[in-house]
């Protein structure tokens, strides 16, 4: 019997909940005995270290992990690999990526770029006068946060300076950044705050779809819901539905279920004949892909409609 582990950042984010469901289903299908672990909150390094140790102690053949801090976990991951486990980073790469045997991830920066490009194209010439609000995750500025934020800005055509720092840009089109904790309540409050700074905001980037839904409520309460572009990242089913209903203009869909099932397959292969998965050409990770979902496609950026998106969405 093959033992394997899945360690996610938290158990509260639907993205990871879905990833876990996908992995559990794939494991069952492959006859793998999967244990799942999670941190309590984003950034809970200690819980993840403990989880990896438990996996080593229980003799896991493979570990799938979404590192909550891409730099912090290196030593324990090295231990796990030394103990003979295949370690695959899901969703978030390690820094450097070769800490793990393989990385199956969304290119978060790319995801941001897509929605940035879409928003810029949608505005056309007006993009030069856009007023942009950025609704980020939290004060800690973890990698998904700055990658998506920076990707969006770059896609929109703004110089992002230090790519790992949020808010160091000096482009006058940026009205401001605020944090949302990735949920609706935070999204709404942050949107309200930024509207107070400049009521003319017409482009809103959001870290994820719940934050976008919250931002939309704030816009709706001041009657601005129809003339502001809201873009987001994730591709959860409620988010895609929101694209269909015009709440979100466009979102970049990622594929947690695919990451999970690919991960399980890789562990099975490793356990059976010792082969390791290869990275996508030109990248230091295996790109599980991003798709832009929008019902208002623009030329030059391939996208799916929300109806098609609903068939691929993850939760």
């Amino acid at each position, binding site marked *: 019997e093959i033992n394997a582990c899945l360690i996610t950042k938290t158990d509260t984010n639907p993205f990871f909940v879905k990833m876990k469901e996908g992995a559990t289903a794939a494991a069952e299908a492959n006859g793998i005995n999967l244990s799942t672990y999670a941190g309590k909150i984003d950034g809970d390094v200690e819980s993840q270290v403990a989880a990896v140790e438990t996996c080593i102690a229980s003799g896991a053949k493979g570990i799938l992990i979404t590192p909550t801090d891409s730099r912090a976990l290196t030593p324990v991951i090295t231990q796990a690999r030394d103990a003979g486990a295949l370690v695959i980073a899901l969703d978030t790469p390690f820094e450097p990526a070769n800490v793990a045997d393989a990385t199956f991830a969304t290119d978060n920066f790319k995801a941001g770029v897509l929605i940035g490009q879409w928003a810029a194209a949608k505005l056309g010439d007006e993009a030069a006068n856009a007023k942009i609000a950025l609704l980020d995750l939290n004060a800690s500025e973890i990698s998904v946060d700055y990658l998506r934020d920076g990707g969006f800005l770059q896609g929109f055509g703004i110089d992002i300076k230090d790519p790992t720092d949020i808010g160091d840009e000096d482009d006058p089109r940026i009205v401001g950044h605020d944090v949302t904790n990735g*949920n*609706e309540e935070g999204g709404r409050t942050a949107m309200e705050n930024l509207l*107070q700074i400049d009521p003319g905001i017409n482009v809103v980037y959001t870290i994820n779809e719940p934050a976008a*839904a919250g931002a939309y*409520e704030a816009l*709706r309460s001041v009657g601005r819901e129809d003339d502001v572009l809201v873009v987001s990242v994730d591709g959860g089913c409620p988010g895609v*539905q929101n694209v269909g209903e015009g709440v979100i203009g466009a979102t970049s869909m990622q594929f947690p279920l695919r990451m999970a099932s690919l991960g399980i397959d890789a562990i099975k292969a490793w356990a059976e004949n010792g082969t390791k998965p290869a990275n996508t050409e030109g990248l230091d990770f295996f790109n599980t892909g991003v798709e832009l979902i929008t019902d208002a496609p623009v030329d030059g950026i391939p996208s799916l409609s929300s109806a098609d998106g609903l068939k691929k969405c993850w939760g």
Partner: protein
Amino acid sequence: MSETSGMGSKGQHYEQVLEGSDTRVAQFEVRNTTLLSRVQHILHNNPTFVPVIVLVISLLAFGLIAGGRFFSAFNLSLILQQVSIIGMLAAAQSLIILTAGIDLSVAAIMVLMSVIMGNLAVNLGVPSPFAILLGFAGGMAAGAMNGLLITKVKLPPFITTLGTWSIFFALNLWLSGAQSIRSQDIDDQAPFLKFFGNAFNIGGARITFGVILMVVIFVALWYMLNKTAWGRHVYAIGDDMEAAELSGIRTERTLVSVYMLAGLVCAIAGWASIGRVGSISPQSFYEGNLQSITAVVIGGISLFGGRGSILGALFGALIVGVFQSGLRMAGVDVLWQVFAIGWLIIIAVAIDQWIRRVSA
């Protein structure tokens, strides 16, 4: 018996002179020397003034820093909206802190009840008013669980609610599957859940029903605490539990009622939060417990119980709201906002302590 010769008909011999003793009530002239100590005295006798003054000062300060926009009726009403949910939690928290307890589970109860209401009304098709009532009942049950553990098992409130916080949080994730219920689905299935999101405008200000609800909750609780016997008992329990018990207060019953009422207020806040946020999200208000405690202590309610007015918590919540809004408008980083709130807590309570010092 000759030995008792020292005793007259009325006690010991030397007590005979008491007939002639003075019977006036003592009176002394009152003088307060410096202006500062006079101010201190006035505030000491009206402790709710303190948070009010801090509030006014912070309003003025941010008005200067962040400019006129800050003072617009719209922005001020927005602060009220943003504060409304934490304000209601602070009302619940005040009740408990007045009994010398602390409730780390208020936000967990609130979110759990909003998830229950949403699941029932949106996913299971239960009529909204009924779902809401079930949520209220759930809030009271959660409060009763806290209250019974505290009174019957005699656990300290901090520990009890540290435990139930985990429990309610786990239940919340389990029931919701960590998924939000979308705003649009609520609009379709159970718009009544969003009742408190409705608003009206007066002179540029946008007042939601949720804001009104918050004020109503505070006024009602203030009345109960100050004008009824139950309220006096709550204060007495917070002041000295053993003395309250011995002097004839049904402390256990009162305490359980306090926790149930707090649970109910949380459930009401849960309903109101649906109107405020638009959707129902199991992830929101994770820091709500600490935020509510912050509001309460900034409002001058003693963590040792028995002292302070619940209205202070309202002002405390407003002060935090004004700070956050003002700092954002002034373009301060989130990082430094956290920093500033830390100092706000310390300074606001330090001022409060200085006022109280008069009697120490």
